């Protein structure tokens, strides 16, 4: 079994300067992903998951901490080397409408990475490669000269996947790739992504707000709240035995599509997400937590291993 660490984040921070103060979008995130595995990053709006994905890919400069990709510290890599690195790490976007240039045909969109990195010098080679990629993602080659606006969300998302695969990356950040799609199409794209992972040995970070989606595709799950790590463990464990109150609230809030849900009153979490700007000391979830104590408002709980492979940041499990 392959134990290579594909990606490691060490105390990664990303803060934004706003007129009202420093916005702590990603605050001290650390984790490791092994080659060929999928890490699901889950959280609601404002938790920093998209920012995390982009910071890892160096699309945004990090504020502090380290990003180690395939053993190499890429945190402050200069532009030229970064360009070469782009071949190995790619991104699939959420919105199938805005992630494709409306003025380019499907062929041109998928061909673009090949052109930028000059991987296939002759046009014939590029054409054949694009055809192959389209086949891999399940797009009929007759769509080569159509424009994105003529196609539906599912096909457009497949174009995005083909484009991400063009350079044979090892690592792909998937930023809510199925959230904007209809339910039946979601399933198609999810299956496609799982198949591609198997076939090409890809490593994914799968960002989503939908816990039911992430269960199917992830090996491990990281739950974020207001930029901080709240819980990290294997996918099975999270659903069998969630520890953190936020994770539990998140799970119970999901309406389950079967008769057991009828008339069920979920334990609904009160209040709203507090602001990530100049956050006060203490646990960020304390204001909404049904189990909060005084200590929770004063000190920040550490993120530590409660049981092997299962991490959580909550004083109720901290026996230190």
């Amino acid at each position, binding site marked *: 079994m392959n134990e290579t660490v594909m990606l490691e984040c060490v105390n990664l921070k990303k803060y934004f300067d706003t007129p009202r103060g420093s916005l702590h979008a990603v605050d001290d995130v650390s984790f490791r992903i092994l080659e060929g595995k999928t890490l699901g990053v889950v959280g*609601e*709006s404002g938790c920093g998951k998209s920012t995390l994905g982009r910071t890892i890919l160096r699309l945004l400069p990090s504020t502090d901490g380290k990003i180690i990709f395939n053993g190499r510290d890429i945190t402050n890599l200069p532009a030229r080397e970064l360009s070469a690195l782009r071949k190995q790490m790619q991104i699939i976007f959420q919105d199938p409408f805005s992630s494709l240039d409306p003025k380019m045909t499907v062929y041109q969109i998928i061909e673009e990475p090949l052109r930028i990195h000059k991987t296939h010098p002759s046009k014939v080679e590029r054409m054949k490669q694009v055809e192959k990629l389209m086949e891999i993602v399940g797009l009929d080659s007759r769509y080569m000269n159509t424009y994105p606006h003529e196609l*539906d969300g599912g096909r457009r998302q497949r174009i995005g996947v083909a484009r991400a695969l063009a350079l044979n990356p090892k690592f792909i950040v998937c930023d809510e790739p199925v959230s904007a799609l209809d339910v039946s199409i979601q*399933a*198609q794209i999810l*299956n496609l992504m799982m198949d591609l992972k198997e076939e090409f040995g890809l490593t994914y970070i799968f960002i989503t707000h939908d816990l039911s989606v992430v269960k199917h595709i992830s090996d491990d799950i990281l739950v974020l709240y207001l930029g901080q790590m709240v819980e990290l463990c294997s996918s099975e464990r999270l659903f069998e035995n969630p520890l953190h109150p936020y994770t539990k609230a998140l799970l119970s809030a*999901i309406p389950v*599509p079967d008769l057991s849900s009828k008339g069920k009153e979920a334990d609904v979490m009160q209040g709203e997400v507090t602001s990530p700007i100049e956050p006060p000391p203490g646990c960020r979830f304390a204001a909404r937590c049904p189990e909060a104590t005084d200590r929770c408002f004063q000190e920040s709980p550490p993120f530590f291993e409660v049981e092997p492979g299962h991490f959580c940041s909550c004083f109720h499990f901290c026996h230190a």
Partner: protein
Amino acid sequence: MSEALLEIKDLSIRYTTDKVISRAVNSINLKIDKGEVLGLVGETGAGKTTTALSILGLLPRYTSETEGEIRFKGHKLVGASEKQLRNIRGSQISMIFQDPMTSLNPVFKVGRQIGDVLKFHNKTMSQIEVGQKVDEILQMVGIPPSRKEEYPHQFSGGMKQRVMIAIAIACRPDLLIADEPTTALDVTIQAQVIKMMRSLQKELQSSIILITHDLGIVANLCDKVAIMYAGEIVESGTLEDIFAQDRGHHPYTLGLFGSLPNIKEKRSRLTPIRGLTPHPSELPEGCHFHPRCPQCMEICKTGRTPDRTVQNGHEIRCHLFSAGGRQP
């Protein structure tokens, strides 16, 4: 037997743009009684929003054609005058729209927007009475009345949706149409809003048409369910009828359930419906679902769409179940 609150008979709606005809709704039948919650389920392009808009007479006048009947408390809505419809809108039938970000007027305070609805339908109310009523309504939706002097941008997504709901229930409508009211919200906020809607419904005894693609919410809130595909209601019945696994269902319904990632189940692969939803201007012949149906038969490909088969209120539009076929 008392009259149904809302009854839709053989409703068909066509849009014509740039010489292309889109058959958005194709001969649907629906009935809602007082106090019932009906879930109208379907994906993009199924015709759910069009149906909702037609109830309120909000379809574009020159590019759409409506045939069939919609009766609300016995009165005909299709063909009613704009004046009649205006009196009904907001006071007897209200709508909650999908996107709270764009559905509120950014330059008016929230209290004013709720007050406007009250004043329009209750011309004799005094300013003070309106103010009191607004406070009452805000409390019902869980917003502190002191916030009525704030503007929409000062509210978060979930709170904005509550304001929308407040505007919709201000006049205690008999029928509330909620078009994907929680799609744009986070899961935990969605849970709050659903809980609130349930308690409101019990208190006001309003009927609700809940338009959604989320079968989980349907299971939680609805009494009856109608599943739409390509402008038709392919299956309808009580919640138990639709969700029961030991019964026959329309293949699309089965496909929908199969493509849902379910946190309670342990499947490793989802079973999506192959193919894509047809565009309303290019509907397939025969049964509109046949190109995607795993149980497609010869008869499905040509001729008319299947008849409705009804058993104890559970209706399915599928040749598999029609005369001589299986029973639902």
